[in-house]
C-alpha cells in the first residue's frame, strides 16, 4: 500500500515537473507584459519635498550682504530685516553655521580697516544672537580693505566695499 502511495506521489510529482518544464525562450516577439492592476492607493497626502529657504532666490535670505555708511559699524535700518531673517533661519536650523566676513573701504590705514571690518562683522553677530542664533553657529572674520569687491578711489567703489558678507 505504501509503495503505491509513493508511486502515486512520484507520478504526480513527475507530472508537475513535466508541466513545469522550462520554456525555451523564443526569439520571437516577447510576450506582452502582464498588466497588473494595483488597487488605487488611498487618498494619502502628496509627499513633502523640503525646499531650503536658503536656496530660494525670492526669499529675504537670498540677501547675503549688509552695507554701511563711511566709518560706521552698526547695522543700518534698511538691513535689519535681512539680518533678522538670517537669525530666524539659524535658530530654526541649529545645524547650520555661518561665517560673517567684514570689509571696509580704503580710506583708513590697512590695520584700522581690519579692525573696522571685524567690528562690522561682530555687530551682525550680535544681532543674530539677539534674534535666536547660537554663538557656536557663527564665525566672524575681517578682510579690512584687502579684498575689495570694487576698485577705484570713488564712492561708487567705496560704498560696495563697506560691507559684511554672510556666508553659509
Amino acid at each position: 500500500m505504501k509503495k503505491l502511495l509513493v508511486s502515486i506521489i512520484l507520478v504526480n510529482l513527475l507530472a508537475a515537473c513535466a508541466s513545469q518544464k522550462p520554456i525555451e525562450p523564443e526569439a520571437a516577439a516577447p510576450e506582452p507584459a502582464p498588466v497588473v492592476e494595483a488597487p488605487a492607493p488611498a487618498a494619502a497626502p502628496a509627499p513633502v519635498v523640503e525646499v531650503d529657504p536658503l536656496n530660494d532666490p525670492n526669499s529675504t535670505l537670498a540677501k547675503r550682504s549688509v552695507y554701511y555708511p563711511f566709518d560706521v559699524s552698526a547695522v543700518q535700518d534698511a538691513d535689519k530685516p535681512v539680518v533678522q531673517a538670517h537669525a530666524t533661519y539659524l535658530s530654526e536650523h541649529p545645524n547650520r553655521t555661518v561665517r560673517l566676513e567684514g570689509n571696509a573701504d580704503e580710506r583708513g590705514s590697512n590695520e584700522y580697516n581690519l579692525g573696522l571690518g571685524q567690528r562690522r562683522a561682530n555687530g551682525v553677530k550680535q544681532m543674530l544672537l539677539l534674534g535666536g542664533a547660537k554663538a557656536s553657529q557663527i564665525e566672524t572674520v575681517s578682510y579690512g580693505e584687502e579684498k575689495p569687491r570694487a576698485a577705484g578711489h570713488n564712492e561708487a567703489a567705496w560704498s560696495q566695499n563697506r560691507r559684511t558678507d554672510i556666508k553659509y
Partner: protein
Amino acid sequence: MLLRVLQSLAGSLFLLHVSMASAELSIEIIGAGENQIPVAIVPFGGDAKLALAIKDVVVSDFLRSGLFRMIDAEGKSPHEIAEVSYPDWQARGAEALVIGSVAVQSNGRIEARFRLLDVVKQTELAGQAVSASEGQVRAVGHRIADLIYEKLTGDKGVFSTRIAYVNREGQHFRLVVADSDGYNEQTVLSQNQPIMSPAWSPDGSHLAYVSFETGHAVVYIQSLYTNQRKLLAGFSGTNSAPAWAPNGKQLAIVLTRDGSSQIYLIRPDGSDVRRITFSGEIDTEPNFSPDGQYLLFLSDRGGSPQIYRMPAKGGPAERMTFGEGANFSPRHSPDGKGFVFNHRVSGKFYIALQDFQTGQMELLTEGGWEKKPSFAPNGKLIMFASEARERGILATISSDGRVKQRMFTRSGDAREPVWGP
C-alpha cells in the same frame, strides 16, 4: 645699469631728476639737498671688474641720497695719496675725492681699501679697509658709501639697510625683502591670499607679518636665514599689527579674541599673552619707543581715529593728535624725539611729523594716497606707500622734505613697505 641724468634750473633751485633701474625696482629721484657736496670717485686700482662694480654702487647710492653731485673722474687714476694732484680736482670743482684699491684674496674674500680726501684742505678725512665674502661686492660698495656719507654729512648712512614690502598682482601677493636699492630680492612668502604688516625684528633676522592664508588674519614670525616660520597668534577673529619691542624679547599685537581690536603683549614664541588696552573700541598699530618704555598707537576711542601714547607695560593713554581730520599709523623716530604718521583730512592722506616737545604737526608731503610711513634707521629718510601712474609704488622723502624718490616694482602694486634695521 642705465643712468640717465636730467638737470633743469627752476629759479635758483637745482632740480636733479635721476632714473635708474635695478634688479626689481625702478627708482626715480626728484629734488636735491640744500647743499650738494661735489665728490669725485676714481675707480679703484687692482681688480678692474670689482673696481667698476664698487664705483657703480657708490655713485648710485650717493645720487639716491640727493646730497651729492658727482664730479667726472675721467682721465685721472690715482690709487694712492702720493699720486693725487689736488689742483686737478679743485679745477674740476670737487670738494671730496675717493681713491682706493680692491683685490680678491686666496680664500675668495673681497678686500677693498679706500681713502676719502678733502680736496680743498688737501687732507685725508678717512681711510679704511672694507671686506666681504665672495660675491658680496655690492655690500662692499654700500659699506664704503655709508662710511663716506657719515664723514661728509655727520649722519649715519643707510645704504646697507634693507626694506620689506608686499607686491600685489591681481590676486597674487608676494612678501619681499630687498636691499634698500632694490637688489638682492628675497621672496619671503608667495600666495593668493593677502599679506600685510611686515615687521622687522630689531636685529633684522626675522620678519613678523599678517597672512590670510588660513581664511582669517593670523600673525607669523619667519626667519630670514632659514625661512622657517612659526605661528605667533592665531586666535579666533583677527590677529594683526605685530610690533617688536627694541630688545626683541616681546611684541605688541592686536587681537579681537575678546571682541574689538585691542592691544596685547606676547613673547616671540607665542606665550604669555597679556592684554594692555581696554577701550572696547579699535586700538591698533602699536609702535614701541626706541627705549622700549612707551607705545604709540591708533585708537578711535574718542570718536575718530587718533594717535595716543601709553606706557608699554600698560596704563593710561594720552592723546597726541588733535584738530581736524583723522590720524593713523604712528612710528617713533629713531632718536625718540617725535614720530611720523598718516594724517587724513578732506579725503587726502599726508605724511606728517610731530615733535613730542612742541606737539606741533608738520605736513611733509603734498597729499594723495600716501600711507604707512616708516623711518630709515638714521632718522633722515621716511619710506611710505604711494601711487603713481595708477600703480602702487614705494616712495621715500628726506625728513627735511627736499629729496624724494619713487620706486616702481617691475609689475603689480607695491604696498605695506617698512624700512629694516
